[in-house]
């Protein structure tokens, strides 16, 4: 074997020391993690059960539906009543009137395989249908919805989805905007021969709304700029100040926030118990939603889905274990979060600092009674730094030109 000169390794060692003192403050792994959080890395996922999800004409129609108050029994409520555009499509309330869950933002929601805090719907279009029929929200029947489409949006609807069903399927209702509708006929089951046709139009209303919601996206933030510079190996970035960088270090390090809040939308779109069970009372979270989504006629495997059954992998392999799903709620996105307060599934936290302090409790607290989250110890300064970093994720939204 050829002898190794002692000078060689020494030079290499000195070179490494020299390099490490002038390169990024982040390790390679940290830099990769930070880069992976950038909005630039967002890849649009497919919407297998909605073939209209990326259809511009469907999105235009969905926009009309989203802001229309005609789809409500009082003629006063639209999707935008709770999903307020100026509030990043939330409503600033802990929970809406009559509801028990905080209104989440819908920007980027199409990236998640599950909708609502408990994932009881497996697509955006199926999600959009539920408030239409909810007695404390739009309070419409499916026949009501078809009637409104026929009266106000027939031409546009038929240009996208084809001919509406025969009028006898919904002639018993008064679809005039603002009018008081008759007794709810939730599934229009009484209309012989019409159920499937009415359900099909009802589903298409949801599919159009999904197409519109998918046209919304987050704006880039200061963090995204910083992540880009980290990826490029820039060591002199001034995009974030030192406190914000310290907060980012906690986020990807000792805070373990990135364990659930990862990817460009800072969410794994999955369900976790985070010690919120005690105050949630009877709210079982994901545990109460599994059967609902599996049995829903508007799910990926249902009659109104555009997907082949073997394309519905999320449903096929959905975790059905009750114990692990108990009081578990979907990881929310952290984008645009300054404008989406209050926080958590029941809106119990009014500020980001309250959220951080919930996770930064000591190991003896009841947080551990039922939680996927290991204890996190943070000083007051670290809490403040983490909150400052979270503010760098805030942004508004933009709408694709339709």
């Amino acid at each position, binding site marked *: 074997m050829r002898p190794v000169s002692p000078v060689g390794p020494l030079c290499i060692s000195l070179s490494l020391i020299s390099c490490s003192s002038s390169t990024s403050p982040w390790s390679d792994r940290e830099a990769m993690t930070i880069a992976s959080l950038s909005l630039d890395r967002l890849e649009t996922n497919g919407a297998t059960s909605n073939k209209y999800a990326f259809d511009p004409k469907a999105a235009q129609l969905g926009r009309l539906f989203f802001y229309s108050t005609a789809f409500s029994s009082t003629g006063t409520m639209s999707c935008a009543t709770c999903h307020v555009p100026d509030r990043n499509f939330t409503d600033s309330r802990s929970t809406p009137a009559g509801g028990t869950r905080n209104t989440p933002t819908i920007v980027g929601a199409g990236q998640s395989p599950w909708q609502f805090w408990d994932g009881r719907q497996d697509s955006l279009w199926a999600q959009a249908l539920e408030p239409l029929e909810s007695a404390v929200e739009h309070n419409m029947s499916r026949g009501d919805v078809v009637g409104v489409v026929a009266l106000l949006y027939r031409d546009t609807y038929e240009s996208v989805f084809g001919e509406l069903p025969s009028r006898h399927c919904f002639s018993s209702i008064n679809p005039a905007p603002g009018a008081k509708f008759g007794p709810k006929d939730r599934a229009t089951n009484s209309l012989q021969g019409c159920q499937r046709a009415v359900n099909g139009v009802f589903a298409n209303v949801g599919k159009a709304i999904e197409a519109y919601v998918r046209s919304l996206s987050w704006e880039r933030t200061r963090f995204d700029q910083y992540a880009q510079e980290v990826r490029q190996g820039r060591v002199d970035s001034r995009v974030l100040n030192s406190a914000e960088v310290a907060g980012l270090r906690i986020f990807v390090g000792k805070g373990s926030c*990135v*364990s*659930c809040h*990862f*990817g460009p939308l800072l969410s*794994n*779109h*999955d*369900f*976790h*118990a985070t010690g919120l069970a005690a105050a949630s009372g009877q709210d079982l979270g994901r545990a109460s939603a599994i059967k609902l989504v599996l049995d829903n006629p508007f799910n990926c495997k249902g009659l109104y889905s555009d997907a082949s059954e073997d394309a519905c*992998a*999320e449903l*096929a*392999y*959905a*975790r*059905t*274990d009750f114990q*692990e799903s108990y009081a578990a709620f979907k990881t929310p996105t952290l984008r645009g979060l300054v404008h989406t307060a209050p926080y958590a599934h029941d809106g119990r936290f009014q500020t980001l600092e309250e959220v951080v302090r919930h996770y930064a409790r000591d190991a003896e607290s009841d947080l551990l009674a039922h*939680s*996927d*989250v*290991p204890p996190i110890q943070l000083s007051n300064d670290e809490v403040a730094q983490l909150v400052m970093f979270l503010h760098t994720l805030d942004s508004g939204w933009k709408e694709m030109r339709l």
Partner: protein
Amino acid sequence: MSLRSRPRDMSVYRICPMRMALLSLVFIQVSACRPAEKAQSFSIHAEPSVNTIPLNQLHDWIVNVSGVPDVALREAEIQFDARMPEHGHGMSTSPIVQGKDQGSYLVRGVRFNMPGKWVVTVSATVEGRSYHFDKSFEL
């Protein structure tokens, strides 16, 4: 990633002398009736079907069981599970095990929804005995 598997029930190692004598007689009887076979120890081998285990994406694993007669494999029960010991929870999916005849199984619907340490456990119940295979890795 192959590991020698061990019976979960350690009592199988505690066999009294009388029982050993009876078992020996049975073994001799069986040996007399079967053609000589090369001795093969029981093992479970499990690996992902992709080169790199993806974070938070559905993917498949392949489980191979060897050292068991085909006739016993047809009745074997294979279970696949994975947990994060530091977080106290498992996967977000319920994987489905497919295929039985040749001791090769496709585990569909595996997803590791968080980075960190995971422990995969494959259990095989063959002829009344349970064996398991553990594999831990950092994602």
